[in-house]
């Protein structure tokens, strides 16, 4: 016992070193506990990475397919409005200079060149590739081998992610658009599809840090070019093996449910797919084919995104057009707020985004916005410490997700309208282009 203890009166509380430590520990525990909101939600689908036999989102028995005509893009166009205007460089505004705009517009060129074969956007019908096998007697040894060959080929042709799922007519549009005409989807498909191959393409992290800006759009749009290029090579590959195939990109059906069914990720508050590796920083395309894979289809996989989205709210807080809902729980339909929400097909339990106000912001800002993607805590560069946090997030209970989301902002991630980000993208320092660097 030291001299300080001896001087302290009998039963009075003493602030010696041991008590100070206890106080510190108690204070830390109290601070952590109070940082967790009472409304934070726990995860419902299990712990860790969970594989599902069924589609992992609740679907109402009343759910109906809907027409491509009812998507927000087409409603916007029919109303005589344009969500993309002509390039308008502002040489003193980071991310909006002539070279930012040139990067954006040039990114689309491959898509434009292939638009009549494998368009990435809706509005043009893809070419149906018919069987043209080198060897008419060729058959895959088994479905497992076919599954592996398709995935390796897709990666070879430039896809970053590949998932294969059974064709599900629920996710196909009833009608597809060709210019101003609409066709019944089954009439233009050209064959009865059995399998859908979903392809994912990473969108560059450094350009997404600049969103919303034309520079931020550049890598998103480059994703569409990559989508067209890889889809063309894949449908040609399948054709040469003796199968029908088409690569409609975003057209013919809803790509996100197909991607979920193919195990590429989970739906999120912002309505985009969140993948375990790339988060929402992803472009998605699909290929329909009549190749049958029996039981060798990928399974839907969840890893806690819905629970994280319930507790995070970054995308809703940072959406400049307030199009993303703050509702705690997902719902089976859009909110009854008196608007005509004809663009949202109800009957699936999710968060319904107001795509009309979102597109109006695209038009007003002359960008594709993407603030939600930039601010999402799952949007990170591919570094070991983010992979660690992503793994930890799959096993953390829901309330701690709120803490993790707050720490994300404190660490400087997820900033939108970041005017210093374009300079980081264009800076040559720390990069090597001649192959001599490390």
């Amino acid at each position, binding site marked *: 016992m030291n001299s300080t203890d001896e001087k302290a009166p009998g039963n009075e509380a003493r602030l010696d070193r041991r008590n100070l430590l206890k106080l510190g520990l108690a204070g830390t525990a109290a601070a952590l506990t109070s940082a967790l909101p009472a409304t934070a939600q726990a995860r419902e689908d299990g712990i860790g990475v969970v594989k599902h036999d069924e589609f992992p989102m609740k679907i109402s028995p009343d759910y109906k397919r809907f027409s491509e005509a009812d998507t927000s893009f087409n409603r916007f166009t029919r109303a005589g409005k344009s969500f993309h205007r002509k390039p308008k460089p502002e040489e003193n505004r980071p991310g909006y200079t002539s070279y930012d705009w040139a990067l954006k517009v040039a990114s689309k060129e491959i898509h434009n060149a292939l638009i009549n074969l494998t368009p990435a956007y809706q509005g043009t019908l893809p070419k149906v590739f018919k069987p043209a096998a080198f060897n008419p007697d060729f058959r895959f040894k088994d479905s497992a081998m076919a599954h592996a060959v398709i995935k390796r080929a897709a990666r070879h042709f430039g896809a970053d992610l590949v998932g294969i799922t059974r064709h599900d007519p629920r996710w196909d549009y009833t009608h597809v658009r060709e210019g101003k005409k609409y066709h019944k989807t089954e009439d233009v498909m050209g064959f009865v599809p059995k399998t859908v191959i979903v392809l994912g393409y990473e969108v560059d992290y450094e350009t997404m840090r600049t969103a919303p800006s034309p520079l931020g759009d550049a890598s998103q749009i480059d994703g569409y070019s990559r989508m067209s290029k890889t889809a063309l090579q894949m449908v040609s590959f399948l054709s040469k093996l003796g199968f029908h195939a088409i690569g409609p990109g975003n057209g013919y059906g809803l790509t996100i449910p197909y991607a979920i069914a193919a195990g590429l990720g989970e739906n999120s508050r912002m309505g985009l797919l969140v993948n375990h590796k790339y988060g929402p920083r992803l472009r998605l395309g699909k290929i329909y084919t009549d190749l049958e894979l029996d039981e060798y289809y990928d399974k839907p996989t969840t890893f806690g995104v819905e629970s994280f989205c319930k507790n995070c709210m970054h995308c809703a807080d940072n959406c400049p057009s307030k199009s993303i809902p703050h509702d705690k729980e997902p719902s089976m339909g859009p909110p009854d707020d008196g608007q005509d929400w004809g663009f949202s097909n109800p009957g699936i339990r999710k968060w319904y985004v107001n795509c009309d106000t979102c597109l109006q912001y695209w038009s007003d800002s002359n960008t594709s916005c993407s603030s939600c993607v930039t601010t999402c805590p799952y949007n990170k*560069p591919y570094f070991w*410490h983010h992979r660690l946090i992503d793994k930890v997030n799959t096993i953390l209970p829901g309330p701690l997700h709120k803490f993790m989301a707050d720490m994300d902002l*404190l*660490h*400087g991630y997820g900033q939108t309208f970041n005017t210093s980000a374009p300079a*980081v993208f264009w800076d040559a320092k720390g990069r090597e282009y001649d192959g001599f660097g*490390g």
Partner: protein
Amino acid sequence: MSGLGIFSGIEVLFFWLGVLCLATFQGLVWLRWKLEASWLSLALVAAGCGTMIFDVAWAVSSVLEKEPQSASMSVLVIFLPGLILAVMGMRLAWKQ
């Protein structure tokens, strides 16, 4: 931050983390043999040094990915608690 144009920044980082881990282990052995430090103090020192080494890895990675705010924040929330743990452990070890 490449090593002689041969190794990437992350590769160089993890090499030096290995060196730091080895130095920490040798320090713990020295504390046990020469000072006959208690297992509690060794556990505190190990936890503290491990936390600080983890933060070095985090902070350097954050700089490499061009997010320096993450590096400074990590010093506050990871390195400092590690330093406190290590200092407590060392003081306990020296007392004995």
